[in-house]
């Protein structure tokens, strides 16, 4: 059983953050909320997504798992008004999700979860450096980097967090000291990331006050932030690019 109501904009932002990684996901529905873990087809980025029941206006659910085509949900939420309430109800018998929004009633055919890639394990990584910064700052650095390169170096050097992109001829660097950051745990960290992925990942952070980056040297990065006014959370794990030896 699953029956819930949620603000349309909130749901759209949450789904959009997930759609960065994959098109089809398995939603794990539990009494305390919904969660998803998914890896992109190239095995480069992982998204770990939690949306607690308190993010919903109404929420009641047993444990179940459904397979969803995120593009379809994004399409129908695209038509909805920001302030609309989305009402969802699972019809387990025929694998359909009934969605009511803005006076429209959708019947969404669900995917067989077994046809979607299984939930990945989340690797346990010891990441020496941690940076907490404003989402808009991160987005700005990524946007600047995009103009001249296809990858971005992120690192911590003493008490400074830096992001640097080098193109064939030009380069851009953004340095942030402790006073410009919300928090900093210094440690040896310097890794290069593909902007193909970063650009999409940081898109939703524009509206986010606090983004936490956990970094290492030539290691994957964790990018965490809250969604749905603190009732949910998304973490991205992105594999680095490494200079070939």
């Amino acid at each position, binding site marked *: 059983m699953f029956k819930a109501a949620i603000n349309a904009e909130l749901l759209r932002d949450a789904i959009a953050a997930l759609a960065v990684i994959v098109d089809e996901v398995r939603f794990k529905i539990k009494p305390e909320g919904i969660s998803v873990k998914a890896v992109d087809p190239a*095995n480069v*980025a992982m998204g770990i997504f939690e949306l607690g029941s308190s993010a919903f206006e109404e929420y009641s659910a047993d444990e179940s798992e459904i397979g969803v085509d995120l593009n379809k949900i994004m399409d129908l939420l695209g038509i909805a008004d920001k302030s609309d309430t989305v009402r969802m109800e699972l019809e387990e018998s025929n694998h359909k999700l009934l969605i009511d929004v803005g006076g429209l009633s959708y019947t969404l055919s669900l995917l067989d979860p077994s046809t979607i890639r299984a939930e990945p394990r989340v*690797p346990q990584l010891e990441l020496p450096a941690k940076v907490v910064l404003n989402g808009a700052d991160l987005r700005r650095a990524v946007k600047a980097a995009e103009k001249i390169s296809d990858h971005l170096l992120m690192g911590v050097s003493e008490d400074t967090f830096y992001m640097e992109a080098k193109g064939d001829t030009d380069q851009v660097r953004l340095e942030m000291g402790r006073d410009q950051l919300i928090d900093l745990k210094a440690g040896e960290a310097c890794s290069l990331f593909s902007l193909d992925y970063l650009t999409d990942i940081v898109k939703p952070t524009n509206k986010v006050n606090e983004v936490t980056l956990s970094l290492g040297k030539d290691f994957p990065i964790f990018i965490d932030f809250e969604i749905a006014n603190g009732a949910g959370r998304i973490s991205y794990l992105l*594999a680095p690019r490494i200079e070939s030896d």
Partner: protein
Amino acid sequence: MGTDIGDLLQKRKVEFSDLANQVVAIDAFNTLHQFLSIIRQRDGNPLVDSAGRVTSHLSGLLYRTASLVEVGIKPLFVFDGKPPALKSETLNKRKEVRESSREKWENAKAVGDLESAYRYAQASSKVNQEIIEDSKYLLSAMGIPFVQAPCEGEAQAAHMVLKKDANCVASQDYDSFLFGAPVVVRNLAVTGKRKLPGKNIYVDVEAEIIELDETLQALEITREQLIDIAICVGTDYNKGLEKVGPKTALKLIKKHGDIYAVLREKRAEIEAVDRIREIFLNPDVTDNYEIKWGKPDSEKLLEFLCEKHDFSVDRVEKAAERLKAASGARQKTLDQWF
């Protein structure tokens, strides 16, 4: 060339992108031979520079390798060393074929029969010492590593996969399996539209991957038995049994167990059968090699290809660009942190 056991193997189509991040040990001779026979002008003449030197192999090495590197494949080339003594008959025969093809090619060209000219020209191509030296020089300038095998290149390539220094062997021949290669990719260097030999038909050649274990399981035989089947059919080191193709050979070996029993049963003889098995089972290989991918040296490439061999500066520069872009940082996948 090699052994004709292709019909017995379990092949799967593979996309270049599926091989991303994989180290592929390429059978250099085999690949150069492919380039020399495929990369030709319409009348069958290979590409040549203004001094009349053949450049088909250089063209193939540069542009094909650049495409591989571009999708994240890490190629390395393995060159043949001294062939085993038992191969001399095969090598002599190949030489004969080449020489008679060359004659026929000249004749066909003289009478204006382009189709035959092309066919004979293909059969007359030879990988000579100059071609090998030029290829090695070009690979160095491209930043692509190569390994000199003490004996058969395919054996060395298989050895490197078994040692986990490479993920698979790339060769057109099936002999790699006899040398124990767990995974072989075919058509890697020749994917795309290709003319069928001897026919005016073009086909799409796709890369395919073959796994030794899968094949052995499907056929319900051991690698040793696969070697025995190859010996029945004929290898580079022996003539096969009369009227025995791969399917018959499979039946015979499965029924009788090994080559010795088959020979007894058929009252046939294959010279030096022990030594042939030994070549496949314990090939002469080396652990003395270094594999390192570097950045391409654009200056060297331009000097060698454009100044010496009349390649187009524009195209060489573009290929160097592609190699350079791929030689930098590589995207890792999350798997290695699990």
